[in-house]
């Protein structure tokens, strides 16, 4: 009979009117972020050996790794991701042999200025003199030295120091 479908439709909207609502009041409540979420990148600086596999795996050449030769070892001075070109495909994370590069659950990567968009995971200076002695000791010594220098040079740049990258201090952009 003509009109049956019309009445059915009204019934459904009437039922929906009283049904449970699905809205999540965003800033107050948040949707659970799954474990594998492709969010902001986090680099474990200690594990990273600056091999460049991730940069090679990236389809869009997002990752730039700057390294300097200190003694016999390669020393990474910068790990910058041009996040505006990132496809969030996960190939870089997958390619990492040392399990150093990860996704975090932080999806808030917006920036007010275009120049702030690149995600600087590591920015530090190489230790000045090549240390010929024991490597671990040299490393441990070198890093505390490097940090204050980086800070002093670029105080304005948010997340531009290795502390943020290493996850010791919560990133400023996320706020």
């Amino acid at each position, binding site marked *: 009979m003509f009109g049956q479908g*019309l009445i059915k*439709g*009204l019934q*459904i*909207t*009437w039922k*929906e*009117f*009283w*049904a*449970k*609502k*699905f*809205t999540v*009041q965003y800033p107050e409540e948040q949707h659970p972020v799954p474990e594998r979420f492709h969010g902001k990148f986090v680099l474990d600086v200690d594990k990273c050996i600056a091999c460049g596999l991730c940069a090679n795996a990236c389809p869009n050449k997002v990752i730039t790794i700057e390294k300097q030769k200190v003694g016999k070892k390669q020393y990474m001075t910068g790990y910058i991701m041009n996040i505006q070109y990132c496809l969030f495909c996960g190939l870089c994370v997958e390619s990492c042999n040392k399990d150093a590069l990860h996704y975090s659950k932080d999806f808030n990567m917006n920036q007010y200025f275009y120049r702030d968009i690149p995600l600087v995971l590591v920015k530090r200076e190489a230790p000045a003199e090549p240390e010929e002695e024991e490597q671990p000791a040299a490393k441990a010594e070198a890093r505390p030295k490097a940090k204050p220098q980086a800070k002093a040079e670029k105080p304005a740049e948010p997340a531009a120091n290795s502390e943020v990258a290493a996850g010791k201090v919560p990133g400023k952009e996320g706020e």
Partner: protein
Amino acid sequence: MLENLFVGIADWLRSLLGGLGTPVEINEAIVMLVKLVAILVFILINALWLVYMERKVAAYMQARIGPNRVGPKGLLQTTADIGKLISKEIVIPGKADKVVFLLAPVLIFVPTLMVFAVIPFGKNMAAIDMNIGVFYLLAIASLSTLFFWMGGWASNSKYSLIGSMRVVAQMVSYELPLVLGLLGVIMIAGSLKMSDIIAAQEHTWFIFTQPIAFLIYFTAAVAETNRCPFDLVEGESEIIAGPYTEYGGMAFAMFFLAEYANIMVICAMATIMFLGGWHAPFGLDFIPSWVWFFLKMYALIFVVMQLRWTYPRIRVDQLMGFSWKVLVPLALANIFITGIGMKIYQAIGW
């Protein structure tokens, strides 16, 4: 006390003015003016509230919760929107007819506001209880076609033009079943005066004696206000926004608010003509008459909104076909049957 709240205010005003010793005619004129201003303010506030209600109803039917940030439960949302829209620039397209373009959104409110003068919101609560009230209402309400057309034509845009062509076609063809649907009621009531029609429904509402007429009227009235499923004037998925395509800021908001005021008119009309106006059902007289009137009106408005959020839009040829091939013959048949029925009743004796 509550029953006669508004009537009491009017009487108080009248006696106050009487104390001043001015002539009675001037006193009456002042009282009338106050009444009209009160209605004006009431309508505008109501239109704002209806926008909010529409958004809430829509949201609740779509598993959302709708506006809820501005003010308690989002009640001030439309106020904030209007504030935003007022502050926006009204962009006038380059080749538009400027005068007509700007006049249309101003004038669109005029017929709607004029119509409210004769609507009795409660017992003795019509600003003017004209003896041709229904006629006046229908005549004035159909004027708004012109202003839609003005807006669409003056925009000098093809989408606007198509939209306003549709408005004219639609409104003219739905005017007919609308009036014919009401005719059955008028025949039984034997009067064009609103208060007489309501008085005639003291025992039985006309929706029970004239159910077909009610359906015809309601369908035609929804079409008349360009609401879904007859909203192909706006038809946002086809012709963007029809006559309003080129309007922005407050000019757009005027069209928007006029639409809601029009919904109020048609729902108030349906309440008066079919749902017994301010008569209380089941002898629940302790609730004031005007409360009953508004309850019925808002129930109907809710139905109009539910229709919008349930049905898809019909096509322009189907729209015309539906009016001329279904509604008009049905309305004529209804008048015919009503006439026969009345004769039979008269023969039997009331």
